[in-house]
């Protein structure tokens, strides 16, 4: 399995449980719920990488570490959408949009409207 897919699977486990998990718990969850039979050290490496990238928080508990997502899936989705749609002259070149960018107020309103529909 590609590294990107692994990272996504691990994030999905963390998001679904939300409580901080140990490497062992993530490893078990991957095997039980998602039928991924991975080496324990692989899971540890992936969690470590995700922590380095700042998308996972590492909490020390006694001698072991527990891992939790830095943001819920909804929060992260909202911030990605915000980043995708907000344009300043400086950022014009970073992403290309199908229908253009929004001023901040319109953007917030659009995201809130979409969030209401989600519920």
């Amino acid at each position, binding site marked *: 399995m590609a590294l*990107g897919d692994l990272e996504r699977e691990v994030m999905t486990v963390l998001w679904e449980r939300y409580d901080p998990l140990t490497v062992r718990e993530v490893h078990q969850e991957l095997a039980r719920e998602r039928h991924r039979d991975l080496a324990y050290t692989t899971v540890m490496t992936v969690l470590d990488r995700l922590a380095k990238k700042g998308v996972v928080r590492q909490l020390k508990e006694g001698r072991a570490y527990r891992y939790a997502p830095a943001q819920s899936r909804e929060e*992260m*989705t909202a911030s990605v959408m915000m980043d995708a749609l907000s344009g300043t002259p400086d950022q*014009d*070149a*970073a992403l290309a949009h*199908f229908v*253009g960018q*929004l001023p901040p107020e319109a953007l917030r309103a659009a995201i809130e409207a*979409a969030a209401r529909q989600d519920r």
Partner: protein
Amino acid sequence: MTALLLGALGLTLSLVVPGPLARAHWPGRAPAAAVLLWQAVTLAAVLSALGVVLAAPEELTRAFGSGRPVTAAALIGALAVAAVIVLRLLISLYGVSKRSRARRARHRLLVDLLDRAEQRQELDAGNVRVLQGNLPLAYCVPGREARVVLSDGALRLLDREEIDAVIAHEQTHLRHRHEVVMESFTAFYRAVPRLLRSRAPLDAVHVLLEMVADDAARRRTGSAPLRGALERLAEAVPLAEDVAPETDSRRVRMERLAVPRNPSVALDLLVVAAALALLVLPTVILVVPWLDRALDAWPL
């Protein structure tokens, strides 16, 4: 004299030409060639400015009948100023592309993590990612590992053909490396002193690149699905109220997609020739004769 003529050319290219060129309608018929013309206009304006900086001191000292050492000193000073201008442009370009790369890398990481892989079974392209959420979104993250990102909202809003059209449009941006063009114009915009700069080239080139991507997508899927997608997405995500109709790029693109494509090889060739002439002629007519004179005074 050389400096005066180059100065006039530079000011014309940076202050007079962009307005009418941005308002003209013909670029819609030859968008790719028009992008080339904008590049030539911008580059020729920079070269003219450099020409003024290089030629003016030498010509002035010569006109006042100063001796050889003074002329040589003026030349060296001019070279230093020209180097500063070039350096400023290069630093701006480095900064813009570095910041864009960092933002894209972060964005790509997050969309990869958030991707709802199970929903894109029917989307065959391997670099397409789907975000959960009702806000209809379609965009691409350029770079070596490029992504096309769609939201649930967009997938629900559009039918199959329209989705294909949007993906074809975004893949064209990625394949043709349109972000490099946009980055260079952004960098140039940021490097020019506030009083002299204008957003006209940046905005015009942006719309032209959208047209290039529209044309590639309509060749693949036909105009109707692309136009339908544009209409629905524009309706679902309204722009700010105060956008004038003629500058609303969505409207311009929709109107363009409503009529059959009428590309013209003659127009393309004409525009490309104009772009080349803009770069070559000033050099041959003005710079080469001056260089000939200036080299006489060169001390080394």
